[in-house]
């Protein structure tokens, strides 16, 4: 029971398991559930009569009543998806709320206080709608104030807290159920910073499980001739049972060298269901898991290289997450990276511990506030609850300072009696600033003494304050970049990844189209996007600020200034406002979007499209004799697409999580394909530029005026400079200019108009007004026969007016109205 000190609560809301920890200023303690373990399975059961059970109790029903139990709902947070459990439909956040409620009860049992405030961890890849859904789940569970923290940051904080060395690097390797994150910590001048972070959003313990399932299916096919597939929804329960059996075997293999997988009546067969009995050895497990382990090592090496840190400069490697308990993984990672593993960290509860420590940094004391004595003078105090600095400041203000007997001087004394401040007089604003000294890696309690004008002691509230010395992270960092999509498909970044929250920033933009006052067809859209890409259409749209013509006081012409302010609170709640500088009108209605659901058909189509692009790239790579690095990158995308194919198959079999994963993965692969495309297009662009310039030069030489020739030379020169810089956009612009000049000269040739007429006549079927176009072609033929060039020219011009423009429409980024 904690009766005096503060209590800080951290919760790791995991995909497979969840845990909680409490920090009392000195110790971080994992919270035990009713079964005495620190891990609660992220499972919720709802029976026919609506009764709810959570965790281990729900797990018991998984084998014989799987329809009443639901897990892995975390990844579906923020979607519109309703999950059916038995005959009940619940939103993912409602199921998460049940889990959080159970954890809250466990905390109450352990510390005697039902916490109102806590820190909950979320995966680094979570976007704003998912974070909002997690917050909603916490609210439903009875928490009044929660803050969100990314899982890798939490594990880094837990690993780095009270690091007993002043210099060096640590690597925190976090292989979760669905994601992999790795953080690089550096200790400098007594401060520990997260200096780098990398990860793979599509790699996790689930991949290990499915690799095992795949292996088992192959064994079943070989022995029984039965093909089990994730795409077949009838096989879903069978594969679920198989997966659970293999998970148990995997855990068993941590202790022994060989394990058995036994499932009665599992395999469907025309002669009746058959039993499954498989033997799996440590060596089998290592071979099955090796590709996944190797991918994590690649990511670690990439992170170290990006931060220019050699493996031998890393002092410790901390493993986090369920799969990290596997001896095979430990052995592989230690050997591949050549870094010693740090002992003494529980990989399963490290994230929750980090969250509890962060709750202290954020001053989220879970205890209900005690009433102050009536005679005490209220002080408004501000100081870090956790400080890495040994000499932080305490800033305060006396409330109702004009009252009789109010304090005029303040003094702080550390409770070990080895330090006290001088008497500090209040300033004109009734405030004071006192620099205090802390004992390293301790919870430092200070007593506040006060005197009134006459020098009499005054009772103040609060009478004491506590500052914990250790690694601190006072502000939660932003997990993904947030910005505004511009009409040019670029992104104006407002907040970068790692930006401390809360944050607010304003940038001035300009409108690209006129929005007429009162017009219901005109709308200025300001799309807010989240993601690490420079091209807006590859990022995720997380909200749109819309300025309708009907809400305007005056017409907003194209080019008008708009000051857009984005604001994120500590929990990642986004607000936006646009100020129209000329009319002084403010708009702040943001349409918040949900995580788009991944319809299998749409995924399939996108997958096919990406596959086709990949084939084109492969052919182009062969044609243009691209180097090995390029081909390797193409093959990496190909491997990624294979994974997407499997996920789409699983999504077809009813696995919504796999569908979401496929959607994200396709987006990232699309970005990689675009990069490769741009690279491969460069030689083709050069070739096109070459012939266009040569064609234009020929006609310019023949018919161009002196002025035109000068312009043509300027454009050719600018094009060659653009070629040197590999600036594709500028090259296209200059070549276009030179080509137009060439065309101007070309039409002076006697044969030009007849040839242009033939070209236009060939495209006549695309005309907007077909009868008119055919009539014009007939007129043209007449003119051609009469050799009447002027009439022919007139006919061609008329035809051009009704033929569709060949101009390729540039893709607009979420129809953004700003530049």
């Amino acid at each position: 029971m904690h009766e005096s000190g503060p209590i800080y609560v951290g919760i790791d809301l995991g995909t497979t398991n969840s845990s909680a920890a409490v920090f009392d200023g000195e110790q971080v303690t994992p919270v035990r559930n009713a079964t005495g373990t620190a891990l609660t399975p992220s499972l919720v059961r709802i029976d026919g009569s609506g009764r709810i059970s959570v965790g281990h109790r729900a797990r018991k029903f998984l084998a014989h009543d799987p329809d009443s139990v639901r897990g892995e709902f975390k990844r579906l947070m923020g979607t519109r998806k309703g999950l059916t459990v038995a005959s009940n439909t619940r939103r993912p956040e409602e199921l998460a709320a049940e889990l959080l409620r159970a954890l809250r009860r466990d905390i109450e049992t352990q510390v005697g206080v039902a916490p109102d405030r806590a820190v909950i961890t979320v995966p680094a890849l979570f976007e704003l709608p998912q974070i909002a859904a997690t917050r909603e789940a916490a609210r439903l569970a009875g928490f009044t104030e929660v803050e969100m923290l990314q899982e890798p940051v939490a594990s880094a904080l837990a690993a780095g807290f009270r690091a007993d060395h002043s210099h060096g690097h640590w690597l925190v390797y976090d292989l979760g159920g669905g994601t992999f994150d790795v953080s690089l910590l550096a200790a400098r001048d007594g401060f520990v910073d997260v200096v780098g972070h990398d990860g793979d959003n599509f790699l996790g313990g689930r991949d290990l499980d499915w690799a095992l399932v795949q292996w088992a299916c192959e064994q079943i096919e070989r022995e029984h001739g039965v093909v089990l597939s994730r795409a077949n929804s009838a096989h879903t329960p069978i594969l679920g049972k198989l997966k659970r059996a293999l998970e148990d075997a995997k855990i068993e293999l941590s202790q022994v060298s060989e394990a058995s997988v036994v499932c009665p009546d599992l395999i469907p067969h025309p002669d009746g269901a058959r039993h499954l009995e498989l033997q799996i050895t440590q060596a089998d497990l290592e071979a099955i898991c090796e590709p996944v382990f190797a991918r994590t090592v690649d990511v670690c090496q990439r992170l170290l290289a990006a931060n220019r840190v050699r493996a031998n400069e890393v002092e410790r490697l901390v493993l986090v997450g369920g799969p990290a308990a596997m001896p095979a993984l430990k052995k592989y990672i230690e050997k591949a990276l050549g870094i010693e593993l740090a002992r003494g960290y529980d990989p399963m509860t490290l994230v929750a511990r980090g969250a509890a420590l962060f709750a202290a940094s954020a001053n989220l004391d879970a205890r209900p506030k005690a009433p102050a004595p009536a005679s005490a003078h209220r002080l408004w105090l501000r100081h870090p609850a956790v400080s890495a600095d040994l000499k932080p400041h305490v800033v305060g203000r006396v409330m109702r300072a004009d009252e009789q007997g109010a304090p005029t001087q303040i003094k702080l004394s550390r409770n070990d009696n080895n330090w006290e401040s001088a008497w500090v007089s209040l300033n004109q604003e009734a405030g004071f600033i006192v620099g205090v000294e802390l004992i390293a890696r301790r919870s430092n309690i200070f007593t506040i003494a006060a005197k009134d004008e006459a020098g009499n002691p005054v009772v103040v509230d609060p009478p004491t304050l506590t500052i914990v010395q250790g690694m601190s992270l006072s502000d939660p960092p932003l997990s993904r970049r947030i910005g505004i999509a511009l009409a040019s498909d670029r992104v104006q970044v407002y907040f970068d990844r790692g930006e401390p929250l809360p944050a607010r920033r304003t940038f001035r933009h300009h409108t690209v189209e006129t929005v007429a006052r009162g017009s219901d067809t005109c709308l200025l859209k300001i799309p807010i996007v989240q993601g690490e890409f420079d091209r807006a259409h590859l990022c995720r749209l997380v909200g749109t600020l819309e300025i309708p013509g009907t809400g305007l006081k005056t017409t907003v012409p194209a080019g008008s200034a708009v000051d857009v302010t984005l604001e994120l609170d500590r929990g990642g709640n986004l607000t936006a406002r646009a100020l129209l500088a000329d009319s002084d009108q403010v708009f702040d209605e943001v349409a918040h979007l949900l995580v788009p659901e991944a319809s299998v058909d749409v995924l399939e189509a996108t997958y096919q499209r990406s596959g086709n692009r990949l084939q084109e790239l492969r052919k182009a790579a062969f044609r243009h004799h691209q180097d090995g690095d390029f081909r390797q990158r193409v093959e990496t995308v190909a491997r990624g697409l294979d994974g997407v194919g499997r996920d789409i198959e699983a999504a077809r079999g009813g696995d919504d999580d796999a569908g979401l994963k496929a959607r994200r993965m396709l987006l990232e692969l699309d970005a990689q394909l675009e990069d490769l495309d741009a690279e491969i297009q460069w030689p083709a662009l050069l070739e096109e530029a070459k012939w266009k310039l040569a064609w234009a030069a020929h006609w310019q030489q023949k018919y161009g005026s002196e002025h035109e020739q000068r312009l043509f030379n300027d454009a050719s020169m600018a094009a060659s400079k653009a070629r040197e810089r590999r600036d594709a956009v500028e090259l296209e612009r200059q070549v276009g200019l030179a080509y137009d000049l060439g065309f101007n000269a070309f039409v002076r040739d006697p044969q030009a108009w007849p040839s242009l007429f033939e070209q236009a006549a060939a495209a006549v079927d695309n005309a907007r007004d077909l009868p008119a176009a055919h009539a014009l072609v007939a007129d043209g033929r007449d003119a051609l026969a009469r050799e009447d060039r002027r009439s022919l020219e007139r006919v061609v011009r008329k035809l051009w007016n009704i033929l569709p423009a060949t101009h390729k429409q540039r893709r607009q980024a979420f129809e953004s109205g700003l530049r």
Partner: protein
Amino acid sequence: MSAAGLVLLCVLLCVALVAAPIPSSELGDPNSPRARALRMSELRLASTLTALAVFILLTLYVLGRGGGLDAIAILAGLVGLALMVIHPWIAVRFILIPLGQVRLVHTISSLGGYPWLRDPTGGAALAATLALMRRSHASELEIEWIERQIQGRPLRGAGLAASGLLAACRGDTETARALLRSVEAFDSERCPLTAWRIALEWQMADAASSGDWQAVKRLVQHGPQPSRTAVFLALVARRLTGEWVTDQKLVRAWIRAPHRLDNLRLLQRALRNNEDITDTPPLHPLVDLSEVAANGGSSPQVAAQALMVGFVQNPRAGVPKDRFFRLVDTWEQTLASTSLHTHLSRRVLALQANHSAEELLEQLREQLSDDLAALARAHDLAIGEATGSSGSLRELCVRKFRELLLLEVESTATALASRLQKLEAQDFAHNFEVVTHWRSFLAAREIYEHAAKLGGESLRRMAFPKLEKQLNRLALLALSRFDERGFADGIFRFLLWEAEAQHNEVSAAAYRHNLAAGF
């Protein structure tokens, strides 16, 4: 009786005039508003002549019968009334508009006649707007009512002027300015002279109310025959901007112009302003570069930053472009200086940064070129045609500056294209918000012209095709689907002007063709 015979002949002539058909070559479509307006004006002319002839005939008759002046006065009154019915503008202009009778003005003006022959619908709306502007307060209901009268009709000069004035009534001065400025884009066949004059007068009043007397002078020079008030304001503008205008001339113009009482204070102000105007000295002294450099001491970046601060605090001093390039070159020297390199190398070691001094300098160069280009853009410096040695900060900065300008035009063109796409997908029955689209065209044109001014000839040539395609598409759509000849011609005329300025004969010929032969 010879006089009576002459008068009779007049009457017969009038009847013949009315009966004679109008040549079809003048009309094109006999049911068009233009044809109707022409027929109406012919009828009016005949009626006027008939009324006058009848008046003379009756006067002679009365005098022959020994009638007195009373009878002739009654006759004159009756004829005057008839003339007012035939030419409603007289009553509208001098009675109804000053009284602020919006709907009555509109109803009577809709009858047509002078001065709205070339845009009867828009003219009636403009007259109604003028009446509205005589009131001390315009209700939104009435503004909307007038707007409805011109909606769905092809846009012409008077309608555009009315839309501009209505925007002004709403307080949307920017829109009013843009629309009224663009009235001159309509050719005289589609823009009544009075509408053009009213648009100019509003612009003059707007310029005068903000103290831009140079603009007042400029406006009166390029407009049609100015009104008496416009003449007075122009003289005041000349006087206030330092030109020599005699007091007598000023007073005479004041006497001739209406609203003398309202203008008295302005006259007094102008009369007081009889001192020679000299060039005003710059508000702030130029930044002493040598002093700044001296302050910089051993740290080159201090000198560069001090120059930057000096530039921002006083952007109009000296020759801004030269000062800007001085700033860029100072930064170039700073980035190349050994002292900065040494300083950075030392700090990289001290802070254990994972970038080398060279990498940081490269990063700084990149950031600086972005910042300097943005600074030049924010201060509207025309540096687009400046050149610098390959790879220099100056070259980088100018390139990024041009990139900013091109992006502005390209983004506008993209937005226009997207709007056109939606418009093309709509069914034919859908209303074409002609004033909104005209405003879009004006804004796009302004962005393009501004970019061309700052970016120079080569940028102008590069930016034009981006916008040209979309504007041409808009004009063709407006013409073919919505019969907006005036709207389309305004755009074609701009495109023709640009194509000719850029010696683009192929495009110029196409626009000439579109303007002359029609689609």
